[in-house]
């Protein structure tokens, strides 16, 4: 059972997580040339649908009729299947085995959330003798969605500082210290607007099941240790210390939008601070009228983590998709509508501006999460602590 739990945690983190290894992965671009030129051209021109496995975050983008139309016009019609990022590597492996050789049965592209999931897929592809090239057309940083009165309290207590109009930088080290000291909101300076007895806590999704909460664990462990954790002993010690930040939240929603729904729908009394992907709130702001109330503000943890969406192409058509997503300004504009950042940062900021939501354009302090073995160790410790 212990081994089983350990495996669960490992798989979870393996699949969810990524970071430093991203740039280390070789793209094997040159190997593309192994295929005959003619075959490649024919494949690209084909009008039969290509197949792609995409993470839940990207499914709405591919389901958008405008995206489908553009891709059809570019002779890249696509049928996507939503698959958990962590499930993709296993699916690729199984498909490669079934088809008894490279490419057959394998999707044209895989589009997971997070670099680690991407690396797992790349490893699996390598084992199956398939070339998988990687690009990252979209990304989204982790943010804390909050409220003007809460931000003012945190500023008064030196935990946050304004970094622009209605945008704040969140000092993670001080926030974590306050949370670990079990500070209540009512004990903070100038807390009249939220003088409640509840402890200062950030609401997350369930760390045992959800990627964004794992990102929170990475950021809080960094704040606690002052550096990215690099060994097992300090990883598990950090996780033990941090367990309260998760446990004390009480019931946590276990679906991706759970804590964000609470923030939006119930409000400050339920979720004064909600840890989310930036795309969640930006997408919401851009798709619904009156979605953003005037007192909703974003805080950018210092440092934060930028979650990358990695497109792995395993065929010529998959590679054409990579080029299309990287080069087609219309597709990029649509991706921005779903809250995603694209290479052209100006496109993103210009789109967000009229929504009433203020975002931090440039992120100065960005870290990579710890290596996946260590994250796995930490999630395992937390799982144990939370069962107590």
């Amino acid at each position, binding site marked *: 059972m212990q081994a089983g739990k350990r495996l669960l945690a490992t798989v979870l983190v393996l699949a969810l997580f990524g970071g430093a290894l991203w740039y280390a992965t070789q793209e094997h671009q040159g190997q593309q040339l192994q295929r005959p030129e003619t075959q490649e051209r024919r494949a690209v021109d084909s009008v039969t649908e290509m197949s792609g496995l995409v993470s839940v975050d990207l499914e709405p983008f591919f389901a958008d009729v405008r995206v489908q139309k553009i891709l059809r016009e570019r002779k890249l019609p696509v049928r996507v299947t939503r698959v958990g990022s962590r499930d993709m590597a296993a699916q690729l492996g199984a498909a490669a085995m079934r088809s008894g050789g490279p490419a057959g049965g394998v999707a044209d592209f895989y589009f997971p959330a997070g670099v680690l999931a991407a690396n797992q897929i790349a490893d699996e592809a390598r084992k199956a003798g398939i070339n998988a090239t990687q690009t990252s057309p979209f990304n989204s940083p982790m943010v804390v969605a909050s409220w003007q009165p809460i931000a003012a309290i945190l500023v008064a207590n030196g935990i946050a500082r304004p970094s622009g109009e209605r945008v704040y930088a969140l000092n993670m080290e001080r926030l974590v210290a306050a949370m670990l000291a079990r500070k209540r909101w009512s004990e903070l300076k100038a807390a009249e607007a939220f003088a409640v007895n509840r402890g200062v806590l950030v609401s997350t999704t369930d760390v045992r099941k959800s990627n964004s909460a794992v990102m929170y664990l990475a950021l809080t462990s960094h704040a606690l240790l002052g550096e990215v954790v690099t060994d097992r002993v300090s990883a598990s010690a950090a996780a033990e210390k941090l367990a309260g930040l998760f446990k004390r939240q*009480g019931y946590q929603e276990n679906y991706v939008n759970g804590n964000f729904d609470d923030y939006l729908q119930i409000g400050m009394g339920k979720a004064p601070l909600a840890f989310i992907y930036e795309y969640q709130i930006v997408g919401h702001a851009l798709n619904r009228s009156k979605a953003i109330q005037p007192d909703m503000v974003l805080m950018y943890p210092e440092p934060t983590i930028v979650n990358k969406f990695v497109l792995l192409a395993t065929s010529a058509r998959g590679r054409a998709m990579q080029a299309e997503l990287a080069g087609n300004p219309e597709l990029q504009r649509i991706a921005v509508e779903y809250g995603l950042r694209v290479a052209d940062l100006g496109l993103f900021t210009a789109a967000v501006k009229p929504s009433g939501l203020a975002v931090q354009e440039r992120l100065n302090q960005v870290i990579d999460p710890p290596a996946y073995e260590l994250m796995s160790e930490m999630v395992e410790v937390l799982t144990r602590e939370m069962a107590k």
Partner: protein
Amino acid sequence: MKICLKMTLLAGLLAILTACGRQEPSAPASTSTSHAAPVFEVLATSDLKDAQALEKMALQATGVNLKFRYGGTMESTEAVLTGRADAAAAWFANAKYLLSDSQGQSRVKLQEKIMLSPIAVGVSESAARALGWDRPEVAAKVSWKTITEAAGAGKLFYALSNPATSNQGFMALMGVVAAAAGKAEALAPEDVNRQAIATFLKGYKLIGDNSSYLSEKFIEGQGPRLNAFINYENWLLSLNASGRLREKLLLVYPREGVATADYPLMLLDEARREDYLKLVDWLKGKEAQTWLAQQTLRRPVNSEVAASLAGRFTHPGLLVELPFSPDRQLADGLISAYLNEFRKPVASTFVLDVSGSMGKEKRLERLVEVIHYVAGDDASLTGRIARLNEREKVWLLPFSTRPGQPELFEIPAGKRTGKGLAASPDSAAKLKVMAAVRAYADTLRAAGGTALYDSVLQALQMMAEQKKLHPDYQYSVIGFTDGENSHGRGFEAFQQDYAQLPEDARAIPVFMILFGDARESELKALVKVTGGLVFDARHTPLYRVFKDIRAYQ
């Protein structure tokens, strides 16, 4: 073997992970209204009865043939947990109890919150004035602690649905526990202050298991001895709007102790995903959200609709939520302690028809079997409610041509002390009484006629005498019959004699079970006189009916 286990775990995890993702609803599909569309059955908690009109609206707007099937919170939770919901989806006021369990999570493929309604304390205006709660600055400071004190001081007498079977009742208890512990987060069984619960329950006057029943009873009984109603905001606002109250209710939202129902619609049957997404998309759209807000007075989750209806809902300032403790030991311990220790103990007479017709169709065997369950060891979520609880008194009164001799069984109290909620096994003394109840049931034989009114009247008289001697019990009569009255008093004589009973006796509700060839109209007329409800066991398993009734006792 080991690998196999790992693979199973892995598959399970992946299934959960995949299931947890929220999907953006797709564009609304064709608006054809084919009646041949397969039924999309939704198991809904009974407080959603006011939303039944959605069935028709959904069919027209989405082509999805939506049909609700209603049940109590615990009963429905149990059905989903055990995989016996037999429905495409479930719609609960609050699913946190279900979803804090990994088994529960695995049953739910997708979930989406549809609307909101915070639990509030509706206080009769005169009582609110007496308490000072009519002043907004005072009301803003009323916490579950203040409410507990008012109940303890004999100033607040409230209606509330059963804490063991409903979300409102349970969350109210959690609010009391959290306020008394002085901590709102990570409550554990050892934080429970037993005295606070006992004090709060001093004000518990009207018990029941669904909001429609409680609303009717509250309208009848509102006065100095019943001056508050703890329920979802929407039910309280509806009562105020109904014009049927003697005086309006002032809504108080407990400070730092608000529990908001968020009505997640949960997909259970993966094969119906497409219909589910259509429904969710429509339910969160402008038309349905506006209808729900205007007709059922629940707060919309659609920000646009919320903005357009701003001002419709009372704005008492910031509502700070009570975090829900996922600690199952706390939840289950609290329910068990409520039933066995804190609640006013139940004293009731089971008036049991053993006339000759009970020999048909194994009717008597079915009745005896139910008594075996009630006096047995069913530890399921609903079983623990049906079961005889500690301190409970039950008289079994068999009748045929005339009323038989009532036989009293009294379940002894358990031993508990101090703080916390340690689970305690049944005592030997309790088990002995339970065995005696079962043994008694086994002696029942079917013969003779049906003296229904004589027997019910005798039970009421006996309960009234007991109530005089031991007022600290919750009295009721459960009547069970499989045929028409054939001996003894007729209905008119019963009515006359009933009118002669003292007021205290007439306050005792009679719950009638309709079984076999019993006449529905006869029983309905009876409970109209006595107060109470008729439960139909002709098409529902008898044990399930008993479980339902137990939630009203």
